[in-house]
């Protein structure tokens, strides 16, 4: 592995994403939604600010989720379908460099876009005279960024063996299930027995717990930041998951045969 080549590949992802203009579209959409929300004052000033923050954060989550999955799952399949993988791998670049470069590029692009979403939201909240608490905001951003790193790692993993459409769909299904269903699994477990119970428990412990990275409610209701020890543990948990999926991606891609034009 070579850090310099990984950074060069990550820069390529940046250049491509900026030229595709996806990020600008999402940012404009978010700003538009917030502007529309600001113009409405249906619930009185205090409630409106909380409602606006909640909706804005949900939109920031959804947009960053879309960006993370769409950007990460298209990187490797497109290299393969357009044939650029042959130019790339003919250079002294290892497959691990490509996997890490693609992941780093998509993650960093998504994080910068997410920071921009939060910045727009923070400005709007300030204009509504209901600013976010800075320490909580920083923690929320840090955890959200870690979550995006996990999403992009999963997206890259699926895309090493599947085409873009299949990889994106599978990543959406898995990650949304992990985010929305997993926190409710303990309730289901209580109502099941035998294999069903074991299966649910296995899912519960095997899938990443995205709810740990979600600090939106604390931000909306101006709650205090979480303890630093807890933050550290969640970040460690996230790092382990990211490493796990990136290793899976490398294992899936390192021996993949590229046979376009070969006598198959």
């Amino acid at each position: 592995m070579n850090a310099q080549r990984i950074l060069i590949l990550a820069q390529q992802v940046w250049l491509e994403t900026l030229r595709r203009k996806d990020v600008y579209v999402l940012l404009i959409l978010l700003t538009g939604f917030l502007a529309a929300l600001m113009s409405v004052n249906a619930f009185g000033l205090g409630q409106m600010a909380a409602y606006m923050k909640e909706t804005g954060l949900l939109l920031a989550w959804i947009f960053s989720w879309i960006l993370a999955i769409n950007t990460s799952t298209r990187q490797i399949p497109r290299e393969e379908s357009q044939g650029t993988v042959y130019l790339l791998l003919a250079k002294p670049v290892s497959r691990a460099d490509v996997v890490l470069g693609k992941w780093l590029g998509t993650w960093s692009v998504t994080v910068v876009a997410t920071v921009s979403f939060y910045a727009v939201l923070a400005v709007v909240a300030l204009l509504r005279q209901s600013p976010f608490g800075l320490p909580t905001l920083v923690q929320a951003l840090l955890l959200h960024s870690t979550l995006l790193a996990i999403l992009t790692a999963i997206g890259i993993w699926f895309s090493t063996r599947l085409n873009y459409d299949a990889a994106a769909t599978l990543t959406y299904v898995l990650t949304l299930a992990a985010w929305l269903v997993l926190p409710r699994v303990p309730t289901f477990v209580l109502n099941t027995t035998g294999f069903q119970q074991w299966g649910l428990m296995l899912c519960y412990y095997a899938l990443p717990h995205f709810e740990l990275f979600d600090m939106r409610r604390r931000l909306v209701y101006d709650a205090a930041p979480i303890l630093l020890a807890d933050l550290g543990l969640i970040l460690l948990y996230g790092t382990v998951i990211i490493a796990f999926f990136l290793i899976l991606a490398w294992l899936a891609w390192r021996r993949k045969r590229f046979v376009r034009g070969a006598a198959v």
Partner: protein
Amino acid sequence: MDYAIDISNLVVEFPVPGGRMRALDGLNLRVCPGQVYGFLGPNGAGKTTTMHILLGFITATSGTARLLGEAVSGPIARQRIGYLPEHPDTYRFLTGRELLTLAGRLFLMPRAALRQRVDELLALVGLTQAADRRIGVYSRGMLQRIGLAQALVHDPDLVILDEPTSGFDPLGRIDVRTLIAGLKARGKTVFFSSHELSEVERVCDHIGILAKGKLVSEGTVDALVKADESLEQYFLRMVS
């Protein structure tokens, strides 16, 4: 002596419905440094598969392949190699200059030297005027030219070209021929596949003819082709 290319008993099989298909069947091939080697064969003979093995895109079922004394499995061997694929599809969101800069950076070339080299190469392949245009608007011939330039950016010792003249008009073919002659004059090894037998006859020291995954003939053009036949006739005799 380290051969530029050294392939021993190479077998490549691909899974196909109902069994396995042998694309290369015990291939043995050696290319000396400084040679211009024309790799010929009908479609499906295994030329591209051989090149893909050399570049690590495919792993062999059995046998060994070495480039400039290095095993082909790792990225070290590719440090001194330039490659032009058969279809030089490339990053269409980049300009020609950006693509060459990217290629040079992946070889960790110093920035100042790279800038100069990129300008030289753009002039060499006749793309100076189009250097700052997106590759997405390039014609087929221009794509082939920028593909050639990216293969040469780090001044490689061994250049592997898969059908380098496809997509070129007659003038472009003359340019490719001149370019290969220039590489040969500088002691570089060129290994290329082509269906243009007249081009091969003009530029190659050695030829190898591949049929059904086996090397059926190898040597200099003069030694192989009889006085009363053309390379085309010889080729047809060998592959039939």
